[in-house]
């Protein structure tokens, strides 16, 4: 127990002198807060992006694309194929016996961000009437659904927030035609909230398309066996050359490239900053023990061991680091959490709007980094403090 009481005594001595060394201590705190703040905010971006795509779709629904296509934009499903696919037994039906399947076309329309003039590839989805039954999570937050056969659109909540001219009642001009925005919809924060929806038939004639690009359908049997059955039926039929993917699988794939890129950026910058902050912490801890070497040597002279000195210096470094980590995490949270952004997803060549997400796991990771930097910055000075011969230290003072 003597050992612990020594640790407590030395730590208390150290901490009590912190106010005399506000400058250097603050350097550690600010340095680490900077690292953690940058780490948390950049990773919150990839986290938010990934979350938006990963939360899209449900495992009991599938996306049907032309074989070899990774995204709807490069896929095509003909009208005949769509009709046949919808009636396959693997696809669920509603109470009235109509298939829960929506063949859809996807075009990109140019819209500037609010307050800007440069065009962005905003996804415009033409959907069949079953789309609302297939995607039950869709809820209108304003206005009404588009009427069939009319040039009306409903707009995802995030698209409406990011891009200009998408308020209910406003008119937007795309290719030979004016469209009226009649509603704003929400789908639980997923990728469809970055889209504009219209009646597939109207969109097809306006954009002069002859076919669809994809089909989204509810599985009659959501188990793997059910999916395999549907795949088998499609593969056996020579009229189809179609890939079937569960929705979450399809959307998660789209997040991979860009989220990976943001992660690389975030981690690279943070590693460099962490190295810089470690040097800062080392500097501070060296000067901290230098200013206290007489006290430490006195303690050693009256019988305190070396280990308590090491431990206490480490505790001081870790406490400062923890403080820095908390400040950095809090800054990241306050500034970034919920901030929205839209960017071009290279995988789909279309704009995705998403919110930064500062998750508890991210904050924990930030604190972990902080403690690591603190430990790295405290260890060498701590050992030096303990090793310094008592006589030398006392004389130097």
């Amino acid at each position, binding site marked *: 127990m003597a050992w612990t009481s020594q640790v407590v005594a030395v730590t208390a001595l150290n901490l009590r002198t912190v106010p005399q060394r506000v*400058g*250097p201590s*603050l*350097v550690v705190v*600010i*340095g680490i807060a*900077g*690292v953690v*703040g*940058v780490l948390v905010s*950049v990773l919150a971006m990839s986290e938010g992006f990934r979350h938006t795509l990963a939360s899209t779709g449900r495992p009991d629904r599938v996306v049907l694309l032309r*074989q*070899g*296509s*990774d*995204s709807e*934009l*490069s*896929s095509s499903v003909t009208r005949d194929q769509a009709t046949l696919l919808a009636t396959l037994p693997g696809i669920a039906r509603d109470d009235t016996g109509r298939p829960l399947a929506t063949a859809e076309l996807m*075009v*990109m*329309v*140019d819209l500037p961000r609010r307050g*800007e003039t*440069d*065009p*962005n*590839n905003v996804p415009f989805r033409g959907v069949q009437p079953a789309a609302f039954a297939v995607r039950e999570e869709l809820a209108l937050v304003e206005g009404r659904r588009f009427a069939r056969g009319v040039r009306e659109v409903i707009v995802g909540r995030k698209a409406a927030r990011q891009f200009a001219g998408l308020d209910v009642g406003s008119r937007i001009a*795309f*290719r030979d035609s004016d469209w009226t925005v009649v509603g704003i919809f929400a789908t639980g924060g997923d990728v469809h909230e970055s889209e504009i929806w219209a009646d597939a038939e109207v969109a097809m004639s306006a954009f*002069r398309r002859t076919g669809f690009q994809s089909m989204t359908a509810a599985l009659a049997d959501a188990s793997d066996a059910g999916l395999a059955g549907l795949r088998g039926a499609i593969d056996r039929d020579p009229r189809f*050359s179609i890939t079937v993917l569960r929705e979450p699988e399809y959307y998660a794939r789209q997040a991979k490239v860009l989220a990976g890129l943001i992660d690389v*950026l975030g981690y*690279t*910058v943070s590693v*460099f*900053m962490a*190295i*810089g*902050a470690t*040097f*800062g912490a*080392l*500097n501070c801890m*060296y*000067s901290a023990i230098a200013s206290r070497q007489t006290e430490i040597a006195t303690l050693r002279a009256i019988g305190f061991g070396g280990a308590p000195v090491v431990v206490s210096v480490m505790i001081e470094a870790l406490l400062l680091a923890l403080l820095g980590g908390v400040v950095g995490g809090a800054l990241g949270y306050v500034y970034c959490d919920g901030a929205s*952004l*839209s*960017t*071009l997803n*290279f*995988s789909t*060549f279309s*704009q995705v709007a998403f919110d930064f997400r500062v998750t508890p796991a991210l904050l924990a990771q930030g604190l972990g980094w902080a403690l690591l930097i603190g430990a790295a910055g405290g260890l060498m000075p701590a050992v030096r403090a303990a090793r310094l011969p008592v006589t030398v230290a006392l004389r130097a003072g």
Partner: protein
Amino acid sequence: MRYLPLLWAGLFRRKTRTALTLASVLIAFLLFGLLQAVELAFESGADTADARRLLTTARYSIIEPLPMAYLRRIEQVPGVVGVAFADWFGARYQNESNAFPVFAVDPARYLDMYPEFTIAPDQREAFARTRTGAVAGVRLVERYGWRIGQKLPIASEIHAKSDGSMAWEFDLVGVLDADDPAVRGNTDVVLVNVAHFDEARQFGKGKTGWYIVRIADPAQARVIAAEIDRRFMNSPDETKTQPEKEFAIGFARQIGDMGALVTRILAAVFFTILILTGNTMAQSIRERIPELAILKTLGFSDGKVTALVLAEAVLLLVIGAVLGLTGATAVLPVVNGSTGGRFPPLFVGTGIWLVGLAIAVALAVAVGLPPALRARRLRIVEALGGHR
């Protein structure tokens, strides 16, 4: 220069402390060099844009095709001296989606349009002659170990051949390069001869993706662009023509404000450095008050002592900046080697060096000024007497 040894002695009075401070300054500028290079790469499209080139795309969305018949009609517009076109192939190579961009082009027209790309004359000729010919950027050739004369099996995610298959094959007949390193990233493409492509595809025959228009006088760009669009107005395929630079900037904006993100990160980095070195400098000057007083006793004027302290800060930051930027300059070629073709080449140009050094000096003044002023106000008697 006479005072350099004195500065040096002051700076390295506490070796560990100075080394550690220097190391964190170095890291900050290394990061600055790397991030600026990334940002520059994002903007390189706009920087390497040619003011004599316009881009004509479909008016409502750049992914809509345009008729190939527009070629002659654009050529007739006064002020236009050359027209080329390209179609997006949507490549899948070794099962990787969009591993690199592939454009279907008319070889002679396209290569004439981009004189900054270099290609051996015989290879250029072979490309124009071979209906299934393809040329690839040098970084792609290196990355995949391709050889001239080999077959390039590239699948398309968009265009099916008339037999319904998406698997295409081209003959690699040449390598594209560029003398300017900033342009080299633009050669990270595979160009395929449109002759075979258009003949063999199932859908979309007679259509292309976009036109590149060369004009004689950049000052006429807007007038000519407006005239081109006017000619196709009210047709089923209306166009949007803009200078290449504008197009590149607009496209980069799609990604979002990359510049603002990088600037914010760097601001956090430099703020941290400011605090760190500021503290070190203040500490160092505090310790040296008696020494400074002795300098003044020896006849150094107030101004000179102030200048000495400031110079010390400048020296520290400039050394750190030079080391950091040198590090970034040295590291990037290695990075480029491993990303070949996947990402544009990154490099630290003169511009980044100049901005970096300017930031170093500005930071030095910010951190050096308070201790310098303190040194200036120093009264000899008090300083010598009051300090132990």
